[in-house]
């Protein structure tokens, strides 16, 4: 059956799948595992440093020095992608805007620029003399309030002055859901899913904030695993603004975002094949015509009309180097830009900005990976996200922006190609389902997994 196959269930794959399904295309989302979004801290970083602190990411995206993925993606795709992401989430779930960075505290007490973020992670505007209570929970081992508070307090905030951050450590109430002292942030977050527990902690926070005369309360990002209900309950009981501070994985805000987008994808009719690794493919006349997956117990083949490929980058192993220092894109063996002898890619001096992390795939405006000669490798393969060459995402704070913008560019490129490139049948299906989904997205025919 004709379908677009999206490979990768991170932010890029989920976004592309939702957009394509929303446009009426039959979509299958294949992923090796859960996707990286649940490992992220939930913020939408567009561009934080270029290399100096950026305040208006949207306008800086088009001025960025080459070579960079944003040169191909362009700010228009980023703007559209942010709007699309917002539309796929509950109203008010994300706050902030693409044209205005804000500074948020990290779990080391640094101030980090981001554009949009879940409402629960947004602190009040930091002002000179603001008194913030920074609360650590005994069970959370990636958040130490004295370090966070001291670093926040010693930083001059833009506009002058400093926030006064007061550290306090709180023992969480006993709860059957919290066995022992050594639990993960996700286990703590599940305890917060119980309204009584959330309210009890909120009252502890109210008392501590009262003693410290604090006007806002920062806590590690463990307030529940689903949406923002627990955050609201805690805030209400605390009687003051409460904000979460993002954690290293496992990170509940990323998990929540992942759950919401997965639910949205299902609602839009995306068929999910999770736990299936794409291991091979066949091409014919410059098009990918078949994909093979290796899932538990048996393999499966798919015959996609088009492939949207968002497998991540170095962190997922989509771009990998073997022990003899040969780099490759591991599924389609796509040409890589930025290759050089290993001694030029990895420096003996430590830096997070090793040149190797700029190696990646180059694409045309429709996000089709290009050969060295500048031609699409396959006319129906669209790729983006961590695969793209030319960015050190963690230093630029540009990860989500590149993923979202390239997903939007890939979706638009793919849709533009319909009629010229895709089968007429698919174009017809596209027209039919657009009608359905544009007015009543919730009533899109429910495509069940594996149905013909």
């Amino acid at each position, binding site marked *: 059956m004709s379908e677009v196959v999206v490979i990768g269930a991170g932010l890029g794959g989920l976004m592309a799948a939702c957009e394509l399904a929303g446009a009426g295309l039959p979509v299958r989302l294949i992923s090796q595992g859960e996707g990286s979004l649940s490992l992220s801290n939930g913020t939408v970083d567009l561009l934080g440093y270029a290399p100096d602190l950026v305040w208006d990411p949207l306008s800086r995206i088009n001025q960025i020095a080459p070579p960079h993925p944003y040169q191909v993606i362009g700010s228009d795709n980023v703007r559209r992608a942010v709007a699309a992401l917002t539309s796929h989430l509950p109203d008010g779930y994300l706050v902030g805007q693409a044209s205005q960075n804000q500074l948020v505290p990290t779990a080391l007490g640094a101030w980090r620029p981001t554009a949009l973020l879940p409402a629960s992670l947004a602190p009040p505007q930091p002002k000179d003399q603001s008194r913030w209570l920074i609360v650590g929970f005994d069970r959370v081992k*990636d958040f130490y309030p*004295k370090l966070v508070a001291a670093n926040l307090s010693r930083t001059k905030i833009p506009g002058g002055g400093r926030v006064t951050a007061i550290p306090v450590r709180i023992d969480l109430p006993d709860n059957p859901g919290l066995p022992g002292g050594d639990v993960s942030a996700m286990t703590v977050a599940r305890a917060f899913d119980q309204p009584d527990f959330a309210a009890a902690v909120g009252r502890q926070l109210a008392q501590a904030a009262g003693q410290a005369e604090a006007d806002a309360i920062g806590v590690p990002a463990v307030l529940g695993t689903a949406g923002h209900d627990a955050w609201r309950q805690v805030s209400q009981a605390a009687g003051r603004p409460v904000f979460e501070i993002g954690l290293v994985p496992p990170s509940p805000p990323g998990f929540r975002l992942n759950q919401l987008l997965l639910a949205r994808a299902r609602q839009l009719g995306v068929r999910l094949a999770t736990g299936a690794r794409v291991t091979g493919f066949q091409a014919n006349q410059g098009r990918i015509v078949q994909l093979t997956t290796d899932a538990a117990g048996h393999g499966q083949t798919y015959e996609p009309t088009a492939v949207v490929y968002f497998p991540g980058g*170095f*962190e997922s192993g989509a771009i*990998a180097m073997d022990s*003899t220092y040969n780099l490759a894109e591991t599924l389609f063996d796509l040409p890589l830009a930025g290759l050089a002898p290993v001694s030029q890619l*990895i420096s003996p001096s430590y830096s997070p900005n090793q040149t190797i992390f700029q190696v990646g795939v180059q694409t045309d405006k429709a996000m089709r990976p290009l050969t060295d000669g500048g031609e699409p490798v396959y006319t129906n393969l669209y790729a983006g996200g961590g695969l793209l060459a030319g960015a050190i995402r963690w230093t630029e704070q540009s990860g989500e922006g590149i993923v979202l913008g390239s997903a939007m560019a890939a979706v638009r490129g793919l849709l533009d190609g319909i009629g010229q490139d895709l089968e007429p049948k698919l174009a017809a299906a596209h027209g039919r389902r657009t009608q359905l989904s544009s007015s009543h997205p919730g009533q899109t025919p429910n495509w069940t997994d594996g149905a013909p």
Partner: protein
Amino acid sequence: MDEVRRLSAEVVVIGGGSTGCGVARDAAMRGFSTILVERADLAQGTSGRFHGLLHSGARYAVSDPESATECCVENRILKRIQPDAIEPTGGWFVALEGDGPDYSDKFLRAMERNGLPHEEVRLALARRLEPRLTRRAVQVISVDDAAVDGWALALGTVRSALEYGARVLRYTEVKGIGLTGGRTSTVHCRDRRSGEDFVIEAGFIINAAGPWVGRVATLLGIEDVTVEPAQGIMVAVSQRLVSRVLNRLRYPGDGDIMVPAQTVSIIGTTDAPASDPDRLVMPRDKIQQMLDCGEALVPGFRQARGLHCWVGARPLIRDDSVKPAETRKMRRGMFIFDHASRDGVEGMLSVAGGKLTTYRLMAQEVVDQMCLKLGSPRRCRTASEPVPPPPTDHFVAGQVTKPGAGAEAPEIEQPDWPISPAGRQRPTGPRHITDRLAEAESTRADDQIICECELVSRRALVSALRRHPDDSLDDLRRRLRIGMGPCQGGFCAARSAGIACQEDAWSAGQAVAALRLFLRNRWIGQQPLVYGELLKQIALDNWMLYGTLGLEQLPASQEVVL
């Protein structure tokens, strides 16, 4: 101007590697008041940069039978007195197709002749016991090799020395040695952490600085104690791919030893001259050579997750200038320099060469010689008295020494438990990963694991921080193994910095500086192995440390300006 602080001791030991620690223990056990000074952390030099093999002697059976016999004897002694630092894995010598029977025949004859325990292992059994061993193996002989943890060995030895009243000054560099009437009288030191200069009045000096022994001798104007450091590269991959030490059954050469040590497998080593033990290099082609050697013994070695590589300097001695009558040239390359007969300077002996396996014997012989010179023969007891386990999480209240908080010395290591008149209480510390797992399971309800890879508990970290508030994250790593597993500190380094701040051991600025220094130091041994899983890990660690935690935005200076 302030008066320079003066300490005094009957014996000052220079160098905190295995030999220096052994000398300090031996001297203190014989009743000498002893101070050990070490330029960096204990066992940070060669004693922490080898492959972790406790020799059975088999490796030297053909080339140097006497030293083989000594290794065999010391191996048994150390297994008895220092079991906490040693894992008696056993070892095999393995001949591969194409190695030829020549060496194997010589080897077996030499083992017989010297009475070194060995046994031929049938190939079918060998393959069952070591399923990853290459199918190219044609002959397997088992010997008494073992795995030894150099840090645990040194820390346990020092612990014993402390019990006997020795003092240990880490991060203390010797800047000069004073003479009075042709005899050494003072050791001039600088605390490298506080910058303070101080003096130790020394009755006798034992220079046990390993590859740096010649440099210490030059402080007396003696230029011809020539160390020719030979550098050896080691590569560690995650997991124990084999259960026992594997040696190639051939003339000793590069990369023919694989040791299962703690949670990793180590392949080593190379042998190349180095001009400066402070500037050793790890060229990529040598790393590739080691990976090939690993692959030859254990197919798939290249697919294993690379963790870390390091290079150590063997303290090889060249001493053309002296005749055998003047210095006693020890077998197995061990030297004791008598600077009185050799250079006309009384009151100092230098010891170098040798192997970690024979550290105790080296200490015994040099202290024996010192006793003779001092006219005070005292019996050595190190071969029979057990060494306590290295400190783990035992903290005795009131022993915190903090700079500026009334500390009487730059840093003095304290014994970790009171010595009762009834005899020493001997806490057994968890040393192996399975011990740490058992402990973690028993304290799951009220303690947290801070380093999941190496199962280091929060309690152990806090107790180490209290005892050694000046420790860097690397010092803590050597004590506790934090940051040595697959994530290479991605999670636990930031956690440890946070805990140090939370426990008021470090300021926020110190915590950030410590974290950055740790990452910089770890990178040295990571970067040649950044491929495969470690490349993925570095990307993930960068996402966490920079993408999520914003480490780049946090300078160590007092005020942060964005």
